[in-house]
């Protein structure tokens, strides 16, 4: 650190030092006569005191003046500036050496004290800064607030902060710092500290984990480089915290919106089911009377079937909304697969329209660890899908086989098959076969529901097909541990 004392003070002190030397000379020459050793010691003490108190320049001035006065007034021949005795050279050297050593020691002690005070201030400021940064409200214009805060806490004349995310420069402090955007950007990208002596500005990069986040430009040299790095790190952490919070807020908003959609879909589907109930009850009641013409019966059957279709579409919508809202809770237990399959075949009943469904489930098939209700839905969706997209009367084969850790169930049809690009899309939500979407009714949710349920069981679901040769949909579910009981 340079001493920034103004020149007049220095001049006054030099004059003071000379005055002290003059005073001692006057005292011993005129008032109180003592031997030369005492006079020399007095000069030495004065030089020492001046060096400790004021500095090297003042002490040197006092030394020279002291040597001259000592020589002129006290050393023989008195009244001349010649030194007869070589001992007097020793006295003069002692004066100069003492002045130099004492002033140097004193200056370095002072400097150290000053530096440690400065460091302490810096630490206090860094602490204040970090506390304030922590307390910053993460929402709102963070970058500008950080800039203001650093400038205020460190009392900087000028500060520029380049935020790389928004590509904007924020400035603070009483003076506009003479640094351009290009240099700040370069510092951020290159990640090296840059000092411009001409304008007395330091540019320091801000990065976290190797990722460039921006840069700081600081005018003046009152902040040490260590403190500068600390400021840059604190800024990086604060920015990262803001970004993380921001991302979390956005994810939460997206989740809430998804949840709201699901809740609304669920509520809507339930609302639609309410009027379906009296329709279904009335039409099935009339059909069971049997007391009507064949035409009326046929018409009522159509109403009944369409009611069922509407109902199953609504059921799918409800299932889908549950899955999307993350409400799929598995109630797993070891289950015999054959029971689940049979229940679904019974449920399809008339929907099979006299088709031959061959079930090849080995009698000794190990039990599967599944939620029976949800696995039933998977089988139902796959069967229903096969029934819808294959010609009436064509057979279906349902197979199951056991692997080491899982059981694979597959449903094979003899329909038109699925082209390879379509195979990749059939499980996507709302995707409907290109050739079928006009002809065959459906919601495009069935296979998605099946996939999500299988995934929840940590199983796989896939399709194999060759156009013209039918399709085979398969899924796997985990085997139940051997020793487990109901």
């Amino acid at each position: 650190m340079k001493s920034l004392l103004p020149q007049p003070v220095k001049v006054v002190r030099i004059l003071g030092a000379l005055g002290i030397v003059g005073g001692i000379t006057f005292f011993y020459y005129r008032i109180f006569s003592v031997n030369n050793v005492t006079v020399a010691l007095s000069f030495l003490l004065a030089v020492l005191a001046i060096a400790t108190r004021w500095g090297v320049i003042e002490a040197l001035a006092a030394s020279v003046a002291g040597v001259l006065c000592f020589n002129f007034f006290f050393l023989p021949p008195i009244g001349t500036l010649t030194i007869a005795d070589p001992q007097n050279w020793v006295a003069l050297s002692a004066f100069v050496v003492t002045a130099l050593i004492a002033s140097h020691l004193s200056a370095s002690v002072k400097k150290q004290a000053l530096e440690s005070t400065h460091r302490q201030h810096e630490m206090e400021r860094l602490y204040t800064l970090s506390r304030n940064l922590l307390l910053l409200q993460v929402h709102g214009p963070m970058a500008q607030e950080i800039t203001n805060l650093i400038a205020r806490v460190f009392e900087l004349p000028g500060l520029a902060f380049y935020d790389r995310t928004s590509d904007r420069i924020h400035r603070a402090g009483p003076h506009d710092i003479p640094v351009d955007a290009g240099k700040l950007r370069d510092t951020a990208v290159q990640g090296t500290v840059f000092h411009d002596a001409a304008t007395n500005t330091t540019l320091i990069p801000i990065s976290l984990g190797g990722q460039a986040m921006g840069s700081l430009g600081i005018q003046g040299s009152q902040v040490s480089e260590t403190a500068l790095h600390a400021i840059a790190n604190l800024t990086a952490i604060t920015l990262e915290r803001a970004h993380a919070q921001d991302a979390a807020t956005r994810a939460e908003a997206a989740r809430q919106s998804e949840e709201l959609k699901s809740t609304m879909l669920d509520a809507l589907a339930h609302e639609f089911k309410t009027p379906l109930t009296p329709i279904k009850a009335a039409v099935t009641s009339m059909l069971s009377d049997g007391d009507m013409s064949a035409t009326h019966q046929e018409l009522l059957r159509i109403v009944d079937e369409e009611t069922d279709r509407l109902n199953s579409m609504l059921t799918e919508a409800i299932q889908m909304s549950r899955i999307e809202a993350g409400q799929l809770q598995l109630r797993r237990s070891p289950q015999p697969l054959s029971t689940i399959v049979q229940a679904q075949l019974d449920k399809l009943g008339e929907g099979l329209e006299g088709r031959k469904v061959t079930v090849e489930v080995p009698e000794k098939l190990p039990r599967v660890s599944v939620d029976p209700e949800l696995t039933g839905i998977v089988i139902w969706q796959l069967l229903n899908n096969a029934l819808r997209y294959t010609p009436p009367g064509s057979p279906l084969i349902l197979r199951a086989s056991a692997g080491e850790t899982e059981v694979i169930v597959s449903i094979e049809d003899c329909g038109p098959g699925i082209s390879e690009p379509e195979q990749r899309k059939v499980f996507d939500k709302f995707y409907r076969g290109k050739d079928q979407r006009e002809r065959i009714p459906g919601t495009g949710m069935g296979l998605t529901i099946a996939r999500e349920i299988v995934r929840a069981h940590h199983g796989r679901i896939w399709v194999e097909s060759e156009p013209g040769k039918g399709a085979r949909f398969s899924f796997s579910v985990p085997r139940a541990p051997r020793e487990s009981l109901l």
Partner: protein
Amino acid sequence: MTNARILVVDDEPQIRRVMRATLVARGYMVSTARNGEEALEKVREERFDLVLLDINMPGIGGMETCRIIRSQSDIPIVILSIRNAEKEKVEALDAGADDYVTKPFSMPELLARIRAALRRAPLLSSGTPDVLNLGQTVINFVARRVTVNGTEVRLTPKEFDLLRYFASNPDVAIPHTKLLQAVWGPDYGEEVEYLRVFINQLRKKIEPDPSHPEYLLTEPWVGYRFSLPKA
């Protein structure tokens, strides 16, 4: 049992209308209520043979209504609900319902379930005693009464029928399907969760320690077994 009196509880007027029309045509006497509170009032004032109860209603709701009716009476309760998750079925049965039908339902199916709920299991075969003494628990099959340590416990008709079926087939494992068909009726067989709930309720009522049952035992993979204490 025609002439049976049925209380239809639903907040949807169209459902009440269609139920009334259909059930009256089948010879039942029908009364309706728009919500749980009204249903409780009617059950207190009149005698019914069966309650058809909607779950999702404003006010106290179907589940709570079911619980209150069950705490006061043994009347069969059939729940009608739009939700068909197993969790809800089990909750309804736990609340004391005898059966659970998902909306929309076909009328012949509901009528079959109404008949099943109204039906009492056939009388005992001659080989079953009138009174079964299990020690602390005494079952009087003629009077349809059960006492545990001298205190009478109330069993719903379905619970009693289930217990009676067990008592007439002691010490053998009875498969789920057989139990369901014997107690609920021939249309049943897949409703294993019904058995879980009813057996739990029975255990709570007649077992000295319901978590370690002595009489109503689970037969893994098969069903249940009624174990008679060794004399």
